Structure formats: structure tokens, C-alpha cells
């Protein structure tokens, strides 16, 4: 698999997780207050995000030297991946509760029940949808930009991000309810490992590391991070079990 394939896969998976969160917010507002304002808010947020990615992406990919770009963006992708992996490990081990889209749906629906319309536009619904899509979309934009800029395949990564949003939005239209069956933590775990591996690979390339078999080394890095994650979950589960056992008399 070449760098374009890795780029598409990483951008698709990362964007899918964030798109599920954004979709839950838009669905909650739409079901509670009608569809017009949240769809307008969604469209406005997507336009702002597209402008950000296109303008910043072009400037940085054409003006910054390759080694600097790979070191900096690789480092950021790595930090991003480690953060996701850390949360996914804690959730898998039962230290943190699993993220529940039904709770998020209900709390957004409660927020959407407040406020009224002004000048024919339902501003609270517009703002809630805009905020949700913009903030989750910023994370999608960051993933697309980081993956695309480092692999010099901004178009392919962009396609991965857009494909994820289209797939998730289509599911949302069909289901018209929160995507509670999407195993978010499993995806987050996988994407965390993938981003940490790609980040290490790109940062290494930027530092001058000569990886054996080029992009195939990513598979070895995936094995290293998967092993670390599994070991962490096993150790955490066993320490939780020991802590819950009664003290001997």
C-alpha cells in the first residue's frame, strides 16, 4: 500500500469518528427544532472549514521544506494519535465510561429546547449546529491537513475526509437517530494506533531516519503501538480486579 492508500485510510477513519459526533448534534437539533436552521448552520460551518483547509494547506505545502513539514506535522499527528489511544485504552479497561451517543443526543436536544427565532432564522438551532459541526470539523480538517500535507497527497486525504463525512451523513439520513451502534471506541483505538504509527514514521523521515522497506515499516510501528495498547489494557484490568477484591481478614 503506498502513501496515498495510507493517507486515504487514516483520513477516512479519523474523520468518520468526528463526523459521528457532529452528526449526533445536528440530528438532535433537527429533531427538536426542525431541519432548516441546523442544515444552514452545517453548511456555513462546512464552507468556513473548506476555506481554512484550502488556503492554509496550499500555502504550507508549497512553501515549507519537506523535512521541516514532516518533522512538525509528524510530531503533531503523533501527539494527536497518542491522545486518542490513551483515551481508548482507559475506556477499554473500564477506567473511563464508554462514550455514549445517546447521552450526547439527549443533552444536545435539551440545549436546543431553549431560545427563539429572530428575523425568520432560528438562531439557537443554527448556532448549535454550526458550533458542533465547526468544532468536530476542525478536528477532521486537522487530520486531513496533517495526513495530506505530510504525504504530499492533500487531495487524497481530502477525499478520505469527505468520503467519511458522506458515508456518516448518509447513515444519519437513513437512520434519523444517533449512531449508537457505531463502536466508537474500537474505531478510536484503531485510528489512535494508525495516527501514532504514521506520526512516528513521518517525524522519523523528517529527522533523517532511513526506514527499512519505506512505508512498509509503518506495519512494524502499528505492531509496536498495538502491543503497547494491549499490554496497557491487560495491566489496567488486572490492577482494577485486584483493587476490587476484599482485604484478607
Amino acid at each position, binding site marked *: 500500500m503506498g502513501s496515498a492508500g495510507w493517507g486515504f485510510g487514516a483520513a477516512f477513519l479519523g474523520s468518520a469518528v468526528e463526523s459521528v459526533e457532529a452528526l449526533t448534534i445536528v440530528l438532535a437539533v433537527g429533531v427538536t427544532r426542525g431541519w432548516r436552521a441546523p442544515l444552514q448552520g452545517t453548511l456555513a460551518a462546512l464552507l468556513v472549514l473548506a476555506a481554512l483547509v484550502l488556503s492554509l494547506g496550499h500555502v504550507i505545502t508549497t512553501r515549507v521544506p519537506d523535512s521541516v513539514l514532516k518533522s512538525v506535522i509528524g510530531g503533531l499527528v503523533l501527539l494527536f494519535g497518542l*491522545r486518542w489511544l*490513551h483515551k481508548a485504552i482507559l475506556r477499554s479497561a473500564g*477506567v473511563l465510561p464508554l462514550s455514549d451517543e445517546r447521552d450526547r443526543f439527549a443533552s444536545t436536544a435539551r440545549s436546543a429546547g431553549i431560545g427563539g427565532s429572530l428575523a425568520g432564522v432560528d438562531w439557537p438551532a443554527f448556532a448549535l449546529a454550526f458550533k458542533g459541526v*465547526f468544532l468536530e470539523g476542525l478536528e477532521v480538517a486537522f487530520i486531513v491537513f496533517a495526513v495530506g500535507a505530510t504525504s504530499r497527497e492533500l487531495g487524497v486525504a481530502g477525499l478520505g475526509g469527505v468520503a467519511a463525512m458522506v458515508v456518516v451523513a448518509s447513515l444519519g439520513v437513513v437512520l434519523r437517530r444517533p449512531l449508537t451502534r457505531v463502536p466508537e471506541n474500537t474505531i478510536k483505538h484503531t485510528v489512535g494506533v494508525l495516527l*501514532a504509527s504514521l506520526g*512516528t514514521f513521518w517525524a*522519523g523521515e523528517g529527522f533523517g*531516519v532511513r526506514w527499512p522497506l519505506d512505508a512498509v515499516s509503518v506495519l512494524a510501528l502499528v505492531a509496536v*503501538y498495538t502491543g503497547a495498547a494491549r499490554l496497557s489494557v491487560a495491566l*489496567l484490568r488486572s490492577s482494577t480486579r485486584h483493587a476490587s477484591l476484599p482485604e484478607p481478614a
Partner: protein
Amino acid sequence: MLRAVRTAAAGVLGLFMTGWVSAAIALCVLAGGWALARAFPGAAAGFAMAGALALLVVGEALLRGRR
């Protein structure tokens, strides 16, 4: 609008500020990887960096689990 911008800025900052101690350690590991790659440009520096980061993942999870 100002509120939305402030929320967005806080979101972006929050992305990188959560777990800032481990992020700082990860950056130190990266700096070590860079120095090692200057001295030994083969694959060893890269895999040493990955090994140190994997240990960081395990250590951070165990520390968080004990709290």
C-alpha cells in the same frame, strides 16, 4: 460570533493541552530521536523512538489507572 470563535479557539487549544505532561515527554522523546538520527541515520533511531513512545503509552495508562 465572538463566542463561537472563542469556543473554537478553546477547542483547538484543548486538543493539545490535555495531558500536557505526557505531550511534553513525547516531545522530549522526539527531540532524542532527532539527535539519535543525526548520529545514526539508519532505522535504529526510528525504532528506538517508537519503543520509548510505546513505553510512554503503557506508563501513562498505568499512572492514570492508579489515580
